[in-house]
C-alpha cells in the first residue's frame, strides 16, 4: 500500500498535505494575513506539478486493489487540471480580499476540488468514482457559495439540487450495471460486457450512468443550472467551474465510453441526440442575453456538446481530438475569465458596460478579444485548429452522423452572433462625457491573461506537437 502511494500518488498526497496545512493555518493565523493563502495554494499546486514526474505510467499501474489506476492518459489530465488550478489560484486575489476571514478555508476547498478532480480521472471502480465526484461537487458548492451576499447562496443551492438528482440517476444506472455484471470495477465490467451480447438493460444503465455524469458539463437534461450559477458566481470561481470539473468529467467519461460502456449502440445515438439538443438550447438561449457571464455559460454548454458528440463516436482518432479540444478550450476560457476578473470590480457584467474599453486598455482588451475570437473558432488561434480537428473526427465517423455535424456547424454561426455581441462593444467609441476606466491589473492577473493568450496563439500557429501528444495519449488509453 505504501508502495502504491510512492508509485503513483505522490502529487495527490502532497496536495492533500497542503489542504491540511491550509486548514490548520485557517485556525491559527489572523485574518489580516489573508494574502499568503493564495501563495500557499500556488506553491502546493506547483509542487504537485513537479511531483507528477514521479508517477509511474508505463505499464499501467493499478493501486488499492484495482480501485485507482495510472497511465499516461491520467497523467496528462492530471497535468492539465493542475495547470488550470495553478492559473485559477493566481486569479483568486480579488476574491479572497473580500472574504478575508475565510481566505485560508477558501483556498483549502479549492485545493480539495483540484484533489478530487485529479482522482476522478484515475478512478477505476464506480465506488471510487462516485465518492470522488462527490468530493469535487461538494467543494464546488462551497466555492460557489463562498462569495458574500445572497446570490452566491442561491447559485450554490441550485447547483446542489441539480447534482444531487444527477447523482441519484448515476447511481441508479450503476446499480443495474452491477446487477448485470456483478462487479463495480471498470476493467472487470469491460471484460464481462465484451463477452456478452448487448442487452436492453445494459443500454439503459449505460445511458443513465452517462446522464448522471454529464450533468456537471451543463448538458441537456440537467443544463438549466448553468445560467443561474454562472450569473451568481464570482469570476475566479467561474474560471475554476468552467475548466476543472469539465476536464475531470470528460476525462472519466471518455474512459467510461471506451471501456465499460462501449458495447451499447443505443448509447451512441442517445448521447449524440443529447449533444444536439444541448447545442440547440445553449446557442439559441444566448442570443437574447446581454450578460457576458451568461453568454459564456451558454458557450461553455455549447462547447461541451461539440466535444460530447466527438466523444460518443468512440475511436482513437476521436479521443485524440477530444483531448486536444479540451486542452485548447480550457486555456481560452481561462483567458476570458481572467479579463473579466480584472474588470470585475469596475464593471457589472453587462456586455454594454464594456463599451469603448479598448481605447484605454489596448493590450488587455486585445488579449480578451483574441480569446473570444478563439472561442468563436477563427484562424490563427488554437480554437480554429481545435474545431477543424474535432470536426474532421466527427466527419470520419460515417455518413450517419453527418446531419448531426451539419446541425452543429450551423449552430456555430449562431454562436458567432453572440460572441460578436461580446466583442463589438469593446471597440465601440463611447460619448465624450462617459469616462472609460483604466484597468489596473496586478501582476498575477496579467500573467494569467498573457500566458493563456500566448499559448492559444502558439497552438494556433504550430499545433503539430500537441496533436501528436494527444494521439499518443489516445493510443495508450
Amino acid at each position: 500500500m505504501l508502495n502504491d502511494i510512492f508509485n503513483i500518488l505522490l502529487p495527490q498526497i502532497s496536495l492533500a498535505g497542503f489542504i491540511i496545512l491550509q486548514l490548520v493555518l485557517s485556525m491559527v493565523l489572523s485574518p489580516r494575513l489573508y494574502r499568503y493563502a493564495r501563495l500557499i495554494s500556488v506553491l502546493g499546486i506547483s509542487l504537485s506539478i513537479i511531483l507528477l514526474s514521479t508517477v509511474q505510467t508505463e505499464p499501467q499501474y493499478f493501486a488499492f486493489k484495482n480501485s485507482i489506476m495510472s497511465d499516461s492518459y491520467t497523467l496528462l489530465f492530471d497535468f492539465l487540471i493542475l495547470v488550470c488550478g495553478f492559473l485559477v489560484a493566481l486569479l483568486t486575489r480579488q476574491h479572497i480580499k473580500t472574504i478575508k476571514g475565510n481566505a485560508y478555508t477558501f483556498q483549502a476547498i479549492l485545493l480539495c476540488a483540484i484533489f478530487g478532480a485529479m482522482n476522478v480521472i484515475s478512478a477505476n471502480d464506480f465506488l471510487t468514482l462516485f465518492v470522488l465526484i462527490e468530493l469535487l461537487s461538494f467543494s464546488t458548492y462551497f466555492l460557489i457559495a463562498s462569495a458574500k451576499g445572497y446570490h452566491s447562496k442561491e447559485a450554490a443551492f441550485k447547483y446542489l439540487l441539480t447534482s444531487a438528482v444527477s447523482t441519484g440517476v448515476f447511481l441508479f444506472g450503476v446499480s443495474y450495471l452491477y446487477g448485470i455484471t456483478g462487479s463495480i470495477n471498470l476493467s472487470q465490467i469491460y471484460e464481462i460486457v465484451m463477452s456478452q451480447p448487448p442487452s436492453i438493460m445494459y443500454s439503459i444503465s449505460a445511458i443513465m450512468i452517462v446522464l448522471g455524469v454529464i450533468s456537471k458539463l451543463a448538458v441537456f437534461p440537467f443544463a438549466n443550472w448553468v445560467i443561474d450559477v454562472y450569473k451568481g458566481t464570482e469570476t475566479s470561481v467561474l474560471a475554476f467551474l468552467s475548466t476543472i470539473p469539465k476536464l475531470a468529467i470528460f476525462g472519466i467519461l471518455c474512459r467510461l465510453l471506451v471501456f465499460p460502456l462501449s458495447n451499447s449502440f443505443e448509447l451512441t445515438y442517445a448521447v449524440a441526440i443529447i449533444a444536439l439538443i444541448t447545442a440547440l438550447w445553449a446557442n439559441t438561449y444566448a442570443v437574447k442575453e446581454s450578460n457576458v457571464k451568461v453568454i459564456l455559460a451558454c458557450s461553455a454548454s455549447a462547447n461541451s456538446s461539440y466535444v460530447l458528440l466527438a466523444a460518443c463516436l468512440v475511436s482513437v482518432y476521436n479521443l485524440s481530438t477530444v483531448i486536444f479540444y479540451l486542452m485548447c478550450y480550457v486555456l481560452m476560457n481561462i483567458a476570458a475569465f481572467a479579463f473579466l476578473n480584472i474588470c470585475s470590480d469596475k464593471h457589472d457584467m453587462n456586455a454594454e458596460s464594456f463599451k469603448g474599453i479598448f481605447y484605454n486598455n489596448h493590450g488587455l482588451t486585445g488579449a480578451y478579444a483574441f480569446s473570444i475570437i478563439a472561442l468563436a473558432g477563427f484562424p490563427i488561434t488554437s480554437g480554429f485548429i481545435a474545431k477543424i480537428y474535432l470536426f474532421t473526427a466527427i466527419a470520419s465517423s460515417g455518413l450517419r452522423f453527418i446531419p448531426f455535424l451539419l446541425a452543429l456547424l450551423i449552430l456555430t454561426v449562431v454562436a458567432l452572433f453572440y460572441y460578436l455581441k461580446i466583442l463589438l462593444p469593446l471597440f465601440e467609441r463611447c460619448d465624450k462625457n462617459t469616462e472609460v476606466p483604466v484597468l489596473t491589473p496586478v501582476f498575477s492577473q496579467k500573467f494569467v491573461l498573457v500566458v493563456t493568450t500566448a499559448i492559444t496563439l502558439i497552438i494556433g500557429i504550430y499545433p503539430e506537437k500537441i496533436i501528436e501528444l494527444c494521439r499518443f495519449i489516445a493510443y495508450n488509453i
Partner: protein
Amino acid sequence: MEKLLSIPFLIFMPLVVSMFVISPLFTKNEIVVRRFSKSVFGFHFLYSILMLAFFDPANPYTSQIHFFGLDWVQSVGIKFAFRIDNISMILVMLTSFVFLLSSFASKFNIRANHKFYYSMLFLLESAILGIFTSADMFVFFLFWELELIPAYFLIGGKWKGIEVKPTNISASGGGKWKGSETEDEEKRAQNSAIKFVLFTFSGSMVMLLGILLLHYYNFISNGILSASFTDINASRIPEYIQNIIAVCLLIGFGVKLPIIPLHTWLPDAHTNAPTPVSMILAGILLKTGAYGIFRFNYETLPDAFITIAPILAIFAIINIIYTAFVAYAQTDIKRIVAYSSISNMGLILLGLCAINRIGLSASVFHMVAHALVTCGLFMVAGIVYLRCKTRDINTLSGIAVVMPRLFGFATVIVLASIGIPAFAPFVSEILTILGAMQADFSDVLKFVSVFSLPLLIISSCYMLKFLHKSFFGELPAEFEKVNDITVHEFIVLASVLAGLIIFGIFPGTLLGMVG
C-alpha cells in the same frame, strides 16, 4: 533572379507589414502612414509583376512551409502548401493591382484611424492572396475565415472621423440614402458588416462540411491522409458522395459569389462600406467565390460538376436577368453598381458552367474585366458622394458642368461596362456566349443562356440612366462649388481605363495565359 521570387514572401509580406503598422512602434502621423502603405502596395504590385514575368505556365510556382521539418498538421494531413498556376497568377496580379488602386483611393475617403485602417487593408490582402494561392483545402479554409476579420472591420469601421454636417442639402427632400448624418451611416455600416460576416460565416460552415467530407472520402478512396488539391484531384470518390459534397461547397461559395437567393448581404455591404473598401469587395472578394467554384467544383469534383452545371447555369441566368432589373429600380449609385456586380458574377458563373475552354477563359477574363470596371464605377460613385454628399440620382443633376474630367472618365467606364467593343468586358461577354453555345446543355437552356446575354447588355441601360440622371441636366445651386477630380483620383481612374483598353484591344495577353 528566380530564387528571389518566393510565394511565402508574396503572401505574408502584407501580414507582417500589417502587424508592423498597427504596432506602437510605427508613427501615428497619418501622412507617413498613408505614404508608407502606398509604397508598400506599390512594391507588392511590382513584386507580383516580377512573378508574372518569370512565370511559366507549364511549370507553376509551388512552395511549402515546413514547421521544424514537418508538415503543418501532419496528423490530419494538412500541409501549409502554396501553388500558383496560371489562373492563380492572374488573380494574384489582379489582387495586388486593386489593392494598390484602393490605397490611392483611400486618401480622401478615410479620415480617421489611419493606422488601423491600413493594417486591416494589409491583413485583407494577405488573406485574399492566401485564398488564391493555397494548395491545400484546409489552408484555403483558414484564409477564407481569416479574411472575415479585416473585412468586418473595413466595412463596419469608423473611418469618417468627425465631419461637418452638410446643411443646405439635408433641407431639400430626396431619397432614403440622401444627406444622412455620419452617426446613422456608421450604425448602418456596422449592421451591414455584421450581416456580411454572418452570411459568409454560415456559408463557410456548410462549406467546411463539404471540405471535411472531401477529406474523409479522399482518405477512403485514396488511402493517403491528405488535403492537398493535387491528391484529391487524383482520387475517385463515388458520384453520389461527390454530389453531396458539391452542393455543400456550392452553398459556401454561393454566398460569396453571390448566387441569387444568397445575395442579400451584398448590396448593403457594398453600399455602406467606404469607397476603397467597396472597390476591394466588388473587385476581389467576390472573385474568391468564383475561384472557389473553379478550384473545388470544377477541378476537384468534375463528375458532380457535370451533373450540377445545367442547374447552376439556370441560377446564373437568374442572377444575370433578375439583378439587372433590380438595379434599374435603384436610385443610389452605389446600389446600382452593387447590383450590377451580382449580374456580372452571374456571367462569370455561366462561363464556368459551360465546362469548356472558351467558357473558362471567358470567365477568368471577365473576372479581370469586371474587377476593373467595378473599381472605376465605385470610384466615380465615391467621388460624387464626397463632393455632393449624396448618391441619389434623383437629387444629382448636371454635375458634368462642374466636373468635366470626371464626366469623361465616367462616360468611358460606363460604356465599357455595358460592353462596347475595344474594352475588356466586350471580349468576355462575347466569349461567354460562345462558351454557352458550345456547352453540353440541353437546347432550351442553351437558347435561354445565349439570349440572356444580350439582355444583359440591354438591361445595362440602368448604367446609362445613372449617367444621364446624375451628369446631365440642370445644375442645382448647391453643387456649383464642387471641385473636379484631384491627382489621386485621376491616377486611379486613368489606370482603370488603361487596363480596360489594354485588355480590350489585346485580349490575347490574358487569354493566352488561361488557355
